[in-house]
């Protein structure tokens, strides 16, 4: 059965297009324009996830999120145009599961929505997946997805990717990387870190010759980009 998504968005045209897009991806979308209506609707019939615009005409999206959390444990994905880090932090503290600033890439919205649904399905206690744009790294299931499609890498390469992603925005030297993945089962062949990195790149980069996710810093090491897509 199709998963039900409650879409709380005051812009009718955007909501219509989102319903069409998410509907095309196999979701059943219920749309409301007001925060109060969202809370009523959620009390009346449960849904699998909520996509919530932060700026609504009747009440602040953050208030909606707080009240919604007391009524339902459905995962919440916040949409906002503010782009302010404070709102993001407050939103996540109030119980939102993820955050996406407008104008978002539709494929990223889909990937993130699927990620929070999967995470909720696996039980809230499981380790949260790392999401960077369209890339999702599920540390609990040890899987890797781009646009929701699974990519395959070896266990050692996965550990390498996790080490990089958990330190996104920091330059890691080859020695540090080796230390971080120490204890992982060794590969059959003694390949250098660079070779493993190039394999990971082949799996996650749109163009492995011009990487945007794992970047080489000459003479220093590698950096996993914080801002992707």
């Amino acid at each position: 059965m199709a998963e039900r998504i409650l879409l709380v968005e005051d812009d009718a045209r955007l909501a219509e297009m989102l319903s069409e897009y998410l509907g095309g991806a196999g979701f059943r979308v219920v749309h409301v324009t007001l925060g109060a209506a969202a809370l009523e609707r959620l009390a009346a019939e449960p849904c699998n996830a909520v996509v919530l615009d932060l700026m609504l005409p009747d009440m602040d999206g953050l208030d909606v999120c707080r009240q919604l959390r007391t009524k339902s444990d459905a995962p919440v994905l916040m949409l906002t145009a503010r782009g302010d880090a404070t709102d993001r932090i407050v939103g996540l503290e109030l119980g939102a599961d993820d955050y996406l600033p407008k104008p978002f890439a539709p494929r990223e919205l889909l990937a993130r929505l699927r990620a929070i649904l999967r995470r909720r399905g696996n039980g809230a206690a499981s380790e949260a997946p790392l999401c960077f744009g369209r890339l999702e790294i599920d540390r609990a299931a040890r899987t890797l997805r781009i646009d929701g499609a699974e990519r395959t890498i070896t266990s050692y390469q996965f550990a390498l990717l996790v080490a990089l992603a958990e330190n996104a925005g920091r330059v890691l030297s080859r020695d540090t990387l080796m230390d971080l993945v120490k204890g992982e089962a060794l590969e059959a062949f003694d390949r250098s870190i660079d070779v493993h990195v190039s394999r990971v790149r082949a799996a996650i980069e749109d163009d492995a010759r011009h990487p945007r996710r794992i970047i080489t810093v000459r003479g220093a090491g590698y950096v996993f980009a914080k801002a992707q897509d």
Partner: protein
Amino acid sequence: MISHLHTRFFLTLVGSLAAFAVGGIVFMHVDDGGRVVHVVHSFIIFPALALCIGIATYPLTRRLLRRLERLEQAVDALGAGDLSARVAVEGRDEVARLAQSFNRAAGRIEELVAAHKRLLANASHELRTPLARVRLAVELIGESADPKRKAGLDGDIAELDQLIDEILLASRLDAVADPGADEEVDLLALAAEECARYRDVRLDGVAAVRRGDPRLLRRLLRNLLDNAQRHGAAPIEVRLTRLPGSIEIAVDDAGPTLSAEQSQRLFEPFYRPAATERNVGTGLGLSLVRQIAQRHGGDAAYRSLEPHGNSFVVTLPLQA
């Protein structure tokens, strides 16, 4: 109308003069020849009287000074960005009225800044929602659309998004004394990430980590690189150099060296060299670079390179 404060000082002064007069009368006498002679003791008595008056008026002065100090602290706090700073109104004199005026002015500033923040948030929402619609519409066109045209539209949307971001950011930095995020930022990593957005930018530098607003520092680097791409020429090189107590981020390009007049006005908001063919952008990019650098305790400057080329240099103290 004689004010309360004025009355107090006036009465204190009259009291002092009266005390001196009484002291003078008491400690003088008429000599045998009928002349008025001051007694030597008055040299001891007068300072003693002055001391008594000083002690008597001390509580009044101390209370007044304390209230003025509290007012000064509130003004300083407001100036430092604490818009909720107010001062307790005590009594009914000028200082009390000054405190009331300060509280009214601070309240008005707080309201205006809050209104400005609301306006920015609303403007951001109103501008970005249609942009989200366009982006979604491009996606809904599906596979049938020409990929080149689709990529072009995506580029246009990204450009428009950046313009909105720059205009709103310039407005926010100008008007709101918001300290922003304060996180540890790896500047070399940030530079590497931003350089990776272009295919032909070379990065060379040392590791440098300092606290700051990562979003603003990313915007600083992005604007410098966008500027070099738009107005400079390849090769473009980003250098991070450690200086005593600071880090220098330089973005060099091999474009024609700017004139003295141009280089002086580069960091002004909305300044765009007239003869520039690829005149795109808001004209806010470099002024934002300087604003962001200054917000982090540093500054931005232009240096010409020999025989030709431009270097845009941002210096940031390593300890904020």
